[in-house]
Each structure stands twice: as C-alpha cells, then as structure tokens.
C-alpha cells in the first residue's frame, strides 16, 4: 500500500475520532451520544487498519485486522447495553436527554 493512501485513511480516522469526541461532549440527546461513541470507535478502528497496511511484503498485517473484528463485536455489545439503559431510563423517568442547565 502506497504511503499517501495510508496517511489519508489514518488522518480520516483521526478526524472521525474528533467528530465523535465532540459529539460525546456536546450532544445532549443520549441516543446521539451513543452514535458519537460509535463514531469515535470507528475512527480508532480506521487508524488501526490503516496501520496494518504498512507491511513491506504487501499483504496487510492480520493481527490488527483480527483485533478490529473483535472490537466491532464488542462495540455492538456496548451499544446494545447503552440502548437498553436508555430505554429503561426513559421508562422510569421519561427523559432521553440530559437536563440542560442553561435555563436555571
């Protein structure tokens, strides 16, 4: 894999990480926060897989790929858990957004 390509995808991964981080800090809707966390994870996976393409032999390194595969399944487990928590929170309190302190 060409060096330019590796850097392009790695930088795209860093940008996704930043977008997700911004969402986690600034989105008040909880489902939106779950989306943001997933975007952050996707950015990290992208950096990781981009790193695996640097092997001089041309065949990508299988170890980061396998770890990303594990990571995707763990991410979907975490997403399911967070969404279950949101549903329970909604059933108990009726909220799906964090309270806004601006109006106080």
């Amino acid at each position, binding site marked *: 894999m060409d060096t330019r390509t590796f850097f392009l995808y790695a930088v795209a991964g860093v940008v996704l990480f930043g977008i997700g981080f911004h969402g986690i*800090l600034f989105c008040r809707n909880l489902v939106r926060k779950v989306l943001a966390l997933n975007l952050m994870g996707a950015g990290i996976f992208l950096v990781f897989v981009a790193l*695996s393409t*640097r092997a001089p032999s041309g065949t990508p390194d*299988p170890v980061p790929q396998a*770890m990303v595969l594990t990571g995707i399944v763990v991410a979907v487990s*975490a997403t399911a858990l967070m969404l*279950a928590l949101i549903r329970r929170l909604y059933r108990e309190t009726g909220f799906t957004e964090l309270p806004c302190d*601006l109006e106080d």
Partner: protein
Amino acid sequence: MDSSGWAVGSRLGAVLIAVIVGLVGYAVWTFPSEFSGLSDHAIAELQHAGTSNPVTAVLLNYRSYDTLLEMAVLLLAVLAAWALVGGGVNEVCLVSEVSNPVLRGFVRVMTPLSILVSAHLLWLGDHAPGGAFQAGAILASAGVVLFMAGIDWSHKLPAWLERVLLTIGLFAFTGVGIVLMLTGRSFLEYPPATAKWLILMIEVFCGVSIAAALVSVFLGGRLRSRQTVLKKGS
C-alpha cells in the same frame, strides 16, 4: 450553572478536543511508513494453525483468549439487556403488524438464502474471508428481518433452548480448552493435526451463539418473544 459558565465549559471542551485530536494526529504523522508488525510471525506459523486464513488463525488460534472473552462480553450484554428491558417483542414489530404481503413473500425467499450464505461463510472462513462472526451476524440479520416483516418466529421457543443457544458458544470454547488441558497441553493450545476440526467446531457453536445473542439484544434481551404483547399492540 449560568450561561457564562456554560460558555466557559464549552470553550474548555473545545480546547480539550483540539489538544487530544492534535496529539493523536501528531502520533499518526510520526509513524514510520513501512512496518511489518507481527505479520511475518503470523504467516510463518500459518501451517501449524489449522487454517489458511491468517485472520481466522489470529482470532481462533494465536489470540483465542480474545475471542473467548468476547463471547463472554456478548453474553453479558444480553444478560444486562434482559435485566433492564425484560425481553419480549420490540416496537418495530408492532409498527410493522400491518406489513405488506410483498415484504412477507420476499422475506420468505430471503431467509433460507441467508441461512445458506451464513453456513457457506462459516465453512469459507477456513481459507478465505469469512468465519464465525460474519456467519453469526448474517444469521442474526435473517432473524431480525423476519421480525421486521411481522413474522414472530421465536414465541414457541422453549426457555431451556433459549438459554442453551445463548451460552453454547462460550461453553464449547471453554470445554475444548479444558479438554486440551486434560491431555497435557495448555489452555486452548490445539494440536496441529486436529486444529482444523477443533476450530471449525468452536466456530459453529460460537456462530450460533453470536446469532442468538444479536437477535436477543434486538428483542430487548430475550430470544423468546412474547406474543401476547404483539397482539395487544396491534
């Protein structure tokens, strides 16, 4: 908090994001552009690994602890969702109670095909892209799509079978490890001669468990749906 406090907080947050993203970006920028990592080792040992797909070899042989613990994580997510939501049928099915006949017909054609593709991917994982996760995910999406078309297929599932399906991957994986320990090897260290069949067996059970777990989290934590809720909703 007053609005000026909020403004200060959000400015601090923006600075934090800029610093962290800048550091990560700098780290990526300074990586060497050629680095073989572990790929030489992974490919050199492939002949003893019992599979010719390097990713499957890493997942189920070199780093099988990762995969074992991942099955445990998936099971924990199901148990947590079961405890929090309580299972049953989820709301998408209620919405699609009035699903149209074209969708149902399409789903009836697609479901056997999905099961076939899933089995094929499981078998293919030995020497080409594929394996337990992909197979399990496709099997699970077949189950989820059936529900979305308004076909409730799991309300007659016995409670014991539900539990067996959810846990069999973890038990089979651990069981193979313990049996290998009894034969004098270390935990999950496959003998090269039978590695291929042990890996395939673990993959079949794990694929079933992954599919069951993914359908369960979709149905609010339980594989068995509650048909009574479905009737009340329509």
